């Protein structure tokens, strides 16, 4: 199952991962360019939003593609990065970071729903919906992991 690839003991095909990151980085860069292009046809307020979003996507995407291209071209750097990304402790820390950030986010959302209920009903409904979707995603992963492990 594809979820098994996230497990700390599963080896990573580093070259394949780099190539994928280059493609994704370039894709994100193109999205950034499109977003920048939209500035010309939009009003001042929307243009500022799409302009900053586009610039962020363009710079982020190109930097990611450039960094991964460097890993593929420099054998010493590639080896260092491959060991670091395959390292079980690093991968476990990465997964735990996501898990703890997830717990924290869920608690913050819950607190947000409780507080915003007194202030703004619409905001409370939006937060409640996000919390509900979050809980559903969490449940989905539990079911998938039960099958994978």
């Amino acid at each position: 199952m594809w979820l098994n690839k996230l497990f700390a003991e599963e080896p990573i095909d580093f070259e394949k991962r780099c190539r994928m990151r280059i493609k994704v980085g370039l894709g994100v860069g193109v999205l950034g360019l499109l977003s920048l292009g939209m500035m010309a046809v939009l009003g001042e307020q929307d243009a500022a939003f799409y302009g900053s979003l586009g610039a962020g996507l363009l710079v982020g995407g190109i930097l990611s593609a450039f960094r991964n291209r460097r890993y593929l071209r420099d054998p010493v750097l590639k080896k260092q990065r491959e060991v670091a990304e395959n390292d079980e402790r690093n991968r476990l820390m990465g997964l735990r970071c996501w898990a703890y950030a997830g717990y924290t986010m869920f608690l913050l959302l819950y607190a947000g729903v409780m507080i915003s209920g007194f202030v703004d009903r619409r905001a409370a409904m939006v937060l409640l919906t996000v919390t509900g979707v979050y809980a559903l995603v969490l449940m989905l992963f539990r079911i998938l992991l039960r099958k994978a492990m």
Partner: protein
Amino acid sequence: MKNRIQELRKERKIRQEDLAEAVGVTRQTIISLENGKYNASLLLAHKIAKYFDKQIEDIFLFEEEGKCG
């Protein structure tokens, strides 16, 4: 869980970098293992045991909770 990685490594005059490279992890992971901050997976424990030409239980010492000695 305690382990004898540092003891065996020093006995054989092996650097942390060399052990890390041989078992495919970072030097930081070896440091954390030696300090007892991180417990190796079964796979890594197996690789380390193989590297030192020992059994896993000769390197990784399992202590049952509440049991002395």
